[in-house]
């Protein structure tokens, strides 16, 4: 810096310092607000029927690209219900310019797990609700027949085939 260059004014320096400290302090609340605004979860927890192929294992599927990015299905469990369907939530990211679009299904469902929205016992509207305290299980991205992504909580690499879906083509 050359000697003739001016300095920041003390009043504005202090104000910027306070602003930055506040920004860091408020981040958890801002994240909560952003999540509420961006995440559209239809019907809370719904059911996800895997087109009659849920008992598979006998049919081997290859990999396929995700062609429908408007929706992502986040499964809560790989245990089928009595009717053979799977508990899941359908989610998307709100896009002001058109229909929702999800470029990273894993991140979206991971975020829902992280906020306890998929563990089946959490009420996000409860006063005691505190996000970021929930464990995210290992997740696998599968591709449904309609081209939408389904994110499954499992550490089994072959879970997509087991559930009658293709693995995600990268």
């Amino acid at each position: 810096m050359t000697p003739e260059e001016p300095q920041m004014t003390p009043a504005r320096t202090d104000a910027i310092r306070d602003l930055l400290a506040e920004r860091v302090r408020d981040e958890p609340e801002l994240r909560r607000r952003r999540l509420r605004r961006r995440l559209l979860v239809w019907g809370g927890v719904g059911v996800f029927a895997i087109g009659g192929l849920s008992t598979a294992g006998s049919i081997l599927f290859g990999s396929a690209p995700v062609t429908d990015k408007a929706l992502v299905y986040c499964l809560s469990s790989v245990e089928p219900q009595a009717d053979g369907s799977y508990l899941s939530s359908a989610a998307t990211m709100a896009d002001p310019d058109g229909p929702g679009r999800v470029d990273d299904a894993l991140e979206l469902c991971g975020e829902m797990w992280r906020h306890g929205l998929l563990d089946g016992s959490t009420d996000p509207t409860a006063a005691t609700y505190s996000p970021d305290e929930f464990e995210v299980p290992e997740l696998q991205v599968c591709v449904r027949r309609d081209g939408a992504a389904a994110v499954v909580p499992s550490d089994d690499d072959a879970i997509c085939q087991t559930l009658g879906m293709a693995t995600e083509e990268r």
Partner: protein
Amino acid sequence: MIDEKESDAALWLAASSGTERAFVTIFDRYRARIFSAAYRRTNRVSDAEEIVAIVFLEAWRLRKRVRIVDGSLLPWLLAVTANVTSNLSRSQRRYARMIARLPVPDEQDDHALVTDERLDGRPCRQAIHDAMAALSPGDRAVVELCLVEELPLAAAAAALELPVGTVKSRLHRARKQLQSRLAVTELPDGLFATNTTEEVA
């Protein structure tokens, strides 16, 4: 408890985990350098102060992408400063609500400083400013990091997320343009000399 002498990496880790004191310490460590770089581009104290605020707000927004180059945050912050200054009106729009909360700047101070500089008789400063402004944003960022801030080529390349070869070629091109634009201006010895940073590559 934050130690003021803590390394940038340790401070940044603490800051990005939500320790406001660590973030404020980083701000205090680099605000003068960022202000100086911003002022050289804008010639206005109030704009340069707003750029400082925006650069650190951007650092927070992009905290997962921050690059610590040779143990220092400065190269990355300077690269952000170059980007913010190139798109100042867009950056000001993004953070308009926060900037509006800053105290009103004393415009008289700005005017007095500019007038002082003019009276001080520094025609080459204005010529350099104009020649730099005529560069493309990419070339200008390279010139500012390598020639003005005197960062090594490798550090500038890391901060700008560019290959070293690209930085080198941009620098070469920018130097030629500056030399031709400033051919009629009497410049200090050594400025924009062709061998300034070659040894770093």
